[in-house]
């Protein structure tokens, strides 16, 4: 399209070309109208569920709105909660684009969190400028290895990654349970958790009034880098080709196995990074149930935007806001916070249905 512009065709002429208009319409429809419609429909069904179970819809949604936009603190909470979602969503997007169905972000998140905590506790006297990057890198690589494990099992032994990544989730969660009650348990030996990391390892806050920290900036940068890798590098090209059509990719001389293993590695890495950032930026220590299901929510974050890493920033913020707002809603309107899970699930269900209708207009 840019080329046509350069030859000197004015915008008006371009707009008159039916081809171009249908292109624009279709892109708008797919990338903006569909997600927005899905959200509206999901909120609508959510309202039906609320009223059917005897809640006041206006009050509940009002509280949700307040929970997100009510105060600077609340907005900050939304950003805070979106940080791991953006990172995990970005990784999921990379994996899904390559046809690697990584359901293991939860486990990779825990692997990264454990490794990051270990670095922070063991090398406590490192200065912040060295300590934090090292802890994050170690978190990234541990998560990456956790992901690559499933990748290698797939390309070497043809083991279905959906099964192996789910199994690796249990292993990682179990391992963390063991670590926080055994080798890494706090000195007091009271609770199943590690000691708190030292101040020099804590990621700083962006605003004094809010908990949101520089991890959010890292997440945005990672999403941008992932977008460049996916759409502007030979590696990303290979990954996309493999994801769309592994036969054609193999025929064209692309190494399908290594592309897929790389996607698994990178996908695990971003989830691991998210885990390390969560410990260093929010919780300050490792414990069981560190994640309220970020690894699975990340899948929804990616699916909502058709696995586009850059757009996971938007969908990550949306899901982060829903998550943060639901806490307030639970407090103020006494509506259980799990309603947001229902809404999130509905959003994805509507998105998938709309895309199906989009591809098969006649329903056949």
């Amino acid at each position, binding site marked *: 399209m840019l080329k046509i512009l350069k030859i000197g065709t004015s915008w008006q002429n371009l707009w008159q*070309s039916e*081809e171009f208009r249908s292109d624009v319409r279709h892109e708008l429809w797919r990338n903006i109208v569909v997600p927005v419609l899905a959200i509206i429909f999901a909120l609508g069904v959510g309202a039906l569920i609320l009223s059917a179970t005897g809640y006041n819809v206006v009050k509940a949604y009002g509280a949700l709105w307040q929970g997100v936009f009510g105060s600077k603190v609340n907005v900050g909470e939304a950003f805070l909660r979106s940080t791991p979602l953006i990172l995990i969503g970005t990784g999921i997007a990379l994996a899904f684009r390559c046809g690697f169905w990584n359901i293991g972000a939860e486990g990779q998140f825990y692997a990264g969190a454990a490794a990051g905590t270990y670095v922070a506790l063991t090398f406590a006297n490192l200065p912040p400028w060295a300590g934090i990057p090292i802890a994050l890198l170690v978190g990234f690589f541990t998560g990456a290895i956790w992901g690559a494990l499933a990748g290698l099992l797939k390309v070497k032994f043809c083991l279905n990654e959906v099964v192996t990544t789910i199994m690796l989730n249990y292993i990682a969660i179990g391992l963390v349970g063991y670590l926080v009650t055994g080798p890494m348990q706090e000195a007091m030996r009271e609770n199943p958790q590690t000691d708190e990391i030292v101040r020099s390892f804590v990621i700083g806050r962006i605003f004094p009034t809010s908990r949101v920290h520089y991890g959010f900036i890292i997440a945005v940068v990672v999403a941008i880098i992932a977008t460049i890798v996916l759409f*502007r590098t030979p590696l990303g090209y290979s990954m996309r*080709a493999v994801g*769309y*059509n592994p036969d*054609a990719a*193999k*025929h064209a001389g692309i190494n399908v196995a290594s592309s897929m293993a790389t996607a698994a590695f990178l996908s695990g890495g971003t989830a691991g990074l998210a885990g390390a950032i969560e410990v260093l930026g929010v919780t300050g220590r490792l414990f069981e149930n560190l994640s309220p299901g970020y690894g699975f929510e990340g899948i929804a974050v990616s699916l909502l935007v058709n696995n586009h890493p850059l757009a996971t920033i938007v969908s990550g913020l949306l899901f982060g806001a829903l998550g943060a707002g639901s806490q307030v809603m639970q407090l103020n309107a006494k509506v259980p916070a799990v309603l947001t899970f229902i809404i999130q699930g509905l959003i994805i269900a509507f998105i998938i249905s709309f895309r199906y209708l989009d591809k098969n*207009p006649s329903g056949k």
Partner: protein
Amino acid sequence: MTLLNNDQVVPRLEVRNICKSFGSLKANDHISFRVLPGEVHCLLGENGAGKTTVMNIVYGLYRADEGQIFLDGRPIVIRSPHEAIALGIGMVHQHFMLVPTLTVAENIILGTRPLFFSRSSLLTNTWEIEQEVKSIAERYSLKINPSALVSSLSVGEQQRVEIVKALYRGVRLLILDEPTAVLTPQETLELFDTLRILVREGLSVIFISHKLNEIMAIGDRVTILRDGKVVGEKLVCQTNTQELAELMVGREVKLTVEKKPASPGEEVLVVKDLNIEDHGVKTLRGVSFSVRSGEIVGIAGVDGNGQRELALALAGMIKPSAGTIKLCGMDLIGKSPAQIFRAGVCHIPEDRQKMGLVMDFSVAENFVLKKFSSRPFVRHGLLHPKEIFSYASRLTKEFDVRTPSVKKTVDKLSGGNQQKIVLGREIDQKPKLLIAMQPTRGLDVGATEYIHQQLLAQRDRGAAILLISTELEEVMALSDRILVMYEGQIVGETLAERSNVEQIGLWMAGVRA
């Protein structure tokens, strides 16, 4: 023949003003025609002309947007294939709907009676059922063994089972969708004999095809479709192939390929004693041949006789169990597809959508599919869109790909344009050896002509070309030398100018030279 011109006869089937759209595409635009009792009515048209769509409407697979269907003069509404069968309409699809692990008789009665808890159940009276099937087969002189397993039958025999299946259900109108695509020339003649018997018994047959010779051989009347519209209806005895071709394409066409005599040079590809085993099944057994530069060697054969495996082995996609493949003296076995490509072997795969193209990629991305990672398309580790687009625009022009933009994804393009992308990508490498498998499958006459010319141009440039096709006419028209494959072996070889269809047909059926 007098019947055919008689408007007083109530037609077996009449479709009136059928319209069907898929999105913005009008697949059927006010299609009307009538099929009389006792005639073979041909539907002729290129791929995408709407033949299959209108038949799927008649068979209840699609619902028409507009229009009416009359059976024996009565208006009918068909909502499902089940209803179509109940009304006496049967269809034999291109891909057979048979269960390979069941016998012929079991396949034939499948779905016509309850499986259990009944005196007529399938499990209780096999013998009776086989007798029933046998009597039908004999009535229409169809050679068939009711107790044979379907998996043990040849393709031609399976097609016969499909026909008997339809007859068993009492059809009065039989629709055959491109029935000869999978048959040898001899099997085609047998099918035609069967069809003649059927129409003599008063059945009506709708014969969908894009092959002109077959229509001339079997049809009584032909309706020609183009771009979803009826563009003509002719009595076969009053028309000829040239006229039909022009109606079908909408312009003048050359039905023959013009080519200069070949001037072959040295051997480029030498294959010796090649064997391929796949899960214990030998798909290729001791294949040896060579292709010289400047010649087209055609491999004919019925689909599924090892041609696919041969092409994939040459392209490095599967590993042979024994034998050698040499390109200008260099061993190719064990090399990756990328290495073989760089050595000068280009491959137009059989299935462009499955192996040749990434359908969700743009035209530009597909053009660089085999070399996106090398200069000038990559600079400083990043893809260089400008270079990729200008390269793609050049090839788009050179190979006459009709696309509004190189950024369009290829799934939006027609089959012909898709194939031109594959062809252009491969030919632009100036290959030493070009393997073209089914290069014109599913393409319209114009695109087919174009691809044929390009293959001949490559030959004249000095490339060695291996053409693998199940379309015998194509092999005979383009090749300088013809090999015939049967059950993983080369069973016959002939020079193109000395070839004759009967001989090649016998080889295709496995009769040794």
